[in-house]
């Protein structure tokens, strides 16, 4: 799981195709064909990461769902780790 600091900001590759079906958000990298499907909480975290840092994404999940801050942080870090590994996110310089 990622050890990024809470203030870490992440960047979405410009070629990524993002399809928000409301109940599910789907990410497709047309270059690599890598694909990722985000559930409700993953979608909330993803949308928050577009405009805020890691801590902001955790806060968004806590506000939206009845989960503890600790659980939300674990879930967001697991998600970010998988997205970084898949190349669907990268760390901002």
């Amino acid at each position, binding site marked *: 799981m990622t050890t990024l600091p809470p203030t870490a900001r992440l960047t979405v590759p410009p070629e990524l195709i*993002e*399809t928000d079906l409301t109940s599910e958000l*789907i990410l497709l990298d047309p270059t690599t064909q890598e694909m990722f499907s985000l559930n409700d909480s993953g979608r909330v975290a993803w949308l928050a990461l577009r405009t805020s840092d890691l801590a902001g994404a955790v806060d968004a999940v806590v506000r939206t769902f009845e989960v503890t801050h600790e659980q939300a942080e674990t879930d967001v870090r697991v998600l970010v780790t998988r997205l970084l590994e898949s190349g669907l996110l990268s760390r901002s310089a």
Partner: protein
Amino acid sequence: MPEALVFPILGRSFRAQAADGPLKNWLLEHWCFEEHDAAAHPFRIVLERIPPPGKLEGEPVSARLPDVTLPALRVGSASWVLGDRRAGVRLVLEACSAGIELWQDPPDRLPHAALFLALSESLRWSGLLPLHASIASSRSNVTAFLGASGTGKSTTLLQAVRAGRRPLAEDFAWLDPETLSVYGWDRGVHLHPESLDGPAREFASLGWGSAVGGKLFLPFDRRGTTVRQGTLTRLVALEPAYDAASRWEPLPPREAVRALWESLGVPLSDLSRDAAAARIPEILTRLATARLLLGRNPLPL
């Protein structure tokens, strides 16, 4: 000086200056569909012939059609050169118009693929989406069958027609994402000859003719009443499964996104690419989706 060739392309005005001979014939065959009834649109496309340019400059980019990749140069954010110094086009997109300059030397060296791509990009820019699909229409459904080349789109269309549907497109259509109107862009079915020894063998006696590229061709009007446009209601992703039974399956949303995105092709323009990506959710939420496994038994159409 030959006269200008003027006709609408899906409601957009199109004018080709000095279009004669092979250029005129090609434009009429591939881009003039008088049977399409599309609302008037302010977008204009103008095609002009120019002498071959001395030098071509720009950033090399990939320009792809399903069967061919072209040499291409990007010149700024909304201009491209497709082809080479002997035969090619320069495409310039503006807010409500597209300008295409065509050169060819010798005169019979018409850059078909470059011209097709330039006209396609112009229509994309005007808000339409190309859809690489075979499409069949029934009283209650207009179904687009999606799949990569060789998946079985044409054979599935033939089977759908045999099951009582009407053919709308065999390989290519234009989709208006606002209205979900689809406009067929084919005049018949093309098949590789070997298909008639394999998955399409039951259609071998239909009177196929020859077409460009070694394929066989069957005009739509020999297969019953053709429809040329309709309102799309369903997307079906085709999947070969020759050792299994043919059957319908649910199509997970992520697979629907992939199938639709791949069927839309690759635009030249980043703006057109982003516009197409933004359209996918609204298209998918308005259409039924399914997967059709193409197995060893007849399709459950």
